[in-house]
């Protein structure tokens, strides 16, 4: 499936170095399927020990139905758990825009067809402020032109060129494409000294 653009309301999760343990605590990974992970997203930041609601964007009704997540620096650092982006995707997230992302997290998002785009600190602040003030405004992220349109804000979004191409060509769903090199893979398997 080609992913050329995505649009939707935004949800703002502020903070640098938000690790995947915070996105999904380890105890929710005792599953053999990703299907039920929606409720696990940011669980310990959304609920206190007695199950009472804490103040968190994912609990904030103004963000109901949002599909573009806005974040700060090094989002998704730490554990390689794909359960983290899987939980976000099942909550409704289709794209993530931030200052920077951890590498394994980006790899996981890419293989799930979730584009990640980077913007400057000033730009993310402008986007976040607007999304917080006007949560009903719809953002569009055009992958081929790498352009973000958000009301009166128009910005360039930085994407890894290879990941951008993988989205546009549909090759983010990588297994079939990798299998095309079958004869080369067999050759290399024989050729390696181990």
């Amino acid at each position, binding site marked *: 499936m080609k992913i050329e653009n995505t649009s939707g309301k935004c949800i703002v999760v502020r*903070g640098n170095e938000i690790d995947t343990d915070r996105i999904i605590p380890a105890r929710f990974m005792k599953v053999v399927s990703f299907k039920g992970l929606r409720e696990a997203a940011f669980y310990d930041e959304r609920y206190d020990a007695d199950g009472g609601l804490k103040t968190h964007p994912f609990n904030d009704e103004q963000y109901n139905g949002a599909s573009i997540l806005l974040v700060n620096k090094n989002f998704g650092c*730490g554990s390689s*758990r794909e359960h983290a982006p899987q939980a976000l995707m099942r909550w409704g997230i289709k794209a993530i825009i931030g200052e920077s992302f951890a590498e394994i997290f980006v790899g996981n998002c890419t293989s799930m067809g979730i584009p990640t785009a980077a913007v400057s600190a000033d730009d993310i602040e402008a986007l976040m402020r607007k999304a917080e003030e006007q949560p009903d405004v719809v953002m569009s992220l055009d992958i081929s032109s790498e352009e973000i349109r958000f009301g009166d804000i128009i910005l360039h979004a930085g994407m890894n060129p290879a990941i951008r191409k993988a989205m546009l060509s549909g090759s983010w769903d990588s297994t079939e494409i990798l299998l095309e090199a079958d004869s080369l893979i067999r050759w290399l398997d024989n050729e390696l000294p181990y």
Partner: protein
Amino acid sequence: MGMNLFNKVWDLHRVKTLDSGLDQLFIGLHLIHEVTSPQAFSMIEERGLSVKYPDRTFATVDHIVPTLDQSRPFQDPLAEKMIQALEDNTKRHGISLFDTENENQGIVHIIGPELGLTQPGMTIACGDSHTSTHGAFGSIALGVGTSQIRDILATQTIAISRPKVRLIEVSGTLAEGVTAKDIILKIICDLGVNGGIGYAYEYCGPVIEALSMEERMTICNMSIEGGARVGYINPDETTFEYLKDRPYVPQAEAFDEALKNWKSIASDSDAEYDDVYRLDVSGLSPMVTWGINPGQGIGIDENLPLLKNLDAEAAEVASKAYSHMGFSEGTAVLGQPIDAAFIGSCTNGRISDLRAAAAVVKGRKVAHTVRAIVVPGSKHVAVQAEKEGLDKIFTEAGFQWRNAGCSMCLAMNPDKLKGRELCASSSNRNFIGRQGSPTGRTMLMSPQMAAAAAVSGKIVDVRNMK
């Protein structure tokens, strides 16, 4: 100009460059465990695919196994279900599994090297970010997510961007009581938890060359905590000596042949790098973390940083850290009372770590306010420790001596902090909630520092305990 190890090994394993520009990289050794693999097996089966090279994948159980009673079925039905899924998947696809009844079972990053599965010049992947550990042998070892595990099972390859390479040269004289853990914590503090994004780290220099293989593994293990997905050290005589006669290492003439290959992939003396960072460790003190990521650390004799001295980003995270930890800027960490101590994990759960901790513990008692556990990284580590009587030293001091597993490093098993407990931990992550309690608190340090804290009931400088 010559080439560095990373680029040599990458080129040897690059199948081709895909139309997207990503490289298709052959993974020579694939390690799996019970937590991140079941969905990958479901994915290949849903697509009607099979495991392409079952002999290139090895499985073990570590994340969710209980460390007290490992008899089956496990008391936790969810854990039992996951173990069964791994047993079914590996059986169905002809993959070797080291389960809790197998003498080779243990934390995946401990058993790979210990069995000699991990060798120089390999590409190694595992659905776990601490796969960087295996780079200590001069391999490219990287953590992947579940969809990439799917790709490795089905094709033995992944689609990946080629990173740049940063040389980290460590020189100087390491003081008594200062360890590999302290070196890597210092590197992460200096370069930042996101400093390594887009880079592989090559650790070199006289201090690194003088380290044992187990110490090198501690360094490479935490590369990911500095944002670098890959960290490695060139193979040398220390590496070859470690590998000789390990079960999965070629023997006799085949060993000599392998040795030639291993030597050939080391970085050339005139190799090029994209960046260089130099660290002199003379004067380095034992490090402890005070915050909510591994880059928030200080020397044991320093005071906590003042927010006004930090840049805006660091101050934001530090402020959140102080609020979570209940610490105040400008104060000392020395003397901070602790509630728990954990010695183990893929970072510091090897025999040399247990020996170092036991040397501190011997003849002392765990403070009555502290519950302390020692969890060997593998069954082989446990057997060796018991042979040396280390288990007795620990239990006589009041530590609990457990069975092999990840235990309280990530608390996907019964080993967890309770409430706001503060833990002196030899593990790798101090993230909020990491050790199983959403309000629990973790201070990372070397195993000897964690042992010293356990017997003192508070954070102390292990160098003053001689």
